[in-house]
């Protein structure tokens, strides 16, 4: 397990809905759609910017699902890395203040920026 802690924060540039055990997340920046399974949903729901990933894995994943800590942590790092690449969540090495969310200000500032449409129609993107 890595010694550097990771703190996860949900992006302001998303729309999300939990449907059954899964969570559907769509980026409002590029309309990419992700479907998180039950484990992904547990991590997503705990991504509050102040709980380290190792604690999330211990309390929300290993206790609920039949996986070992190391295995779950390795999978989770890959998983959150993919989400971060698409701007679905951000990763920091220190807790993030709940009162400081520069993404929200950025989201509002970019709300009127021209965007290329999908001429063929459809909210499209890479589905996970």
């Amino acid at each position, binding site marked *: 397990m890595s010694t550097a802690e990771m703190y996860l924060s949900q992006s302001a540039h998303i729309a999300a*809905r939990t449907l059954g055990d899964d969570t*559907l997340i769509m980026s409002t920046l590029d309309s990419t759609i992700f479907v998180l399974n039950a484990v992904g949903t547990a991590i997503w729901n705990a991504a509050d910017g102040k709980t380290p990933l190792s604690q999330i894995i211990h309390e929300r994943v290993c206790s609920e699902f039949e996986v070992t800590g190391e295995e779950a942590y390795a999978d989770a790092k890959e998983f959150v890395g993919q989400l971060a690449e698409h701007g679905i969540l951000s990763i920091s090495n220190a807790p993030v203040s709940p009162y400081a969310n520069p993404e929200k200000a950025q989201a509002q500032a970019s709300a009127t920026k021209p965007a*290329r*449409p999908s001429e063929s129609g*459809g*909210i499209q993107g890479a*589905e996970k």
Partner: protein
Amino acid sequence: MVIDIGGLPIEVQTTDPEFERILRKRYGDYIRSAITSEFALRVEVTNPDVFDSDADAEVWLEGCEWRMERGDFRASWNPVERRGQVIQSANPYSIDSVLRIVHTLMLAPEGGFLLHASSAVRNGKAFLFSGVSEAGKTTMARLAPADVALLTDEASYVRKVDGRYFAYGTPFAGELGEPGKNISAPIAALYLLKKAPGNRIEEIDQAEATQRLLRNILFFAHQAEMVRQVFDAACAFVAAVPVYQLAFFPDQRVWELIG
């Protein structure tokens, strides 16, 4: 003249008699003469040489007004004033695209959408058949028996009215090349199409249904608030309307499963 699609009539204003003739031919049963409209599009017909025919379509928000451009038109839409302008040559394709975009902009705040789907009414209930290109939308329309009224083979019009979802006929035709009937009915089911050796209706979970629905919603303005509205609309639709996968072999027997 007023073009009434989805119960949201838009007055299309033009002083060009040739363009008016084109509109009457293109929109036929969707033209209403005896009603007024809160929505209006003023069309300025101009020389096609002023456009860059290679330019892709773009839709964006400028202040409180939507702007849309493609190689063959420039247009604006003010959702507050419910007025817009179009600059295009005298052809039916440009205004058709503008109408599709404007309707998506009008529908999103009320939880409706245009969907890549054929749709039809049978026994007073509407059924939608959605999928990507070549999935079988037009095939389902072609195979429809005589007791089925086609709403469209290309772009289905979905509105939420008093908490219920309705499908409306549209003039937006696909390979069939014919406008749908200008009628509406409550939606009984959405079928996501998949070609197969036989016919069967398969259950799918809500997350997959919503994801596949989102992939087929026509949406041109990728502005954050609009994207959220479409996302919410898709989630609400799937929560309210049965969504199945329809694995089908392209012959008339598939309609034995519908209605």
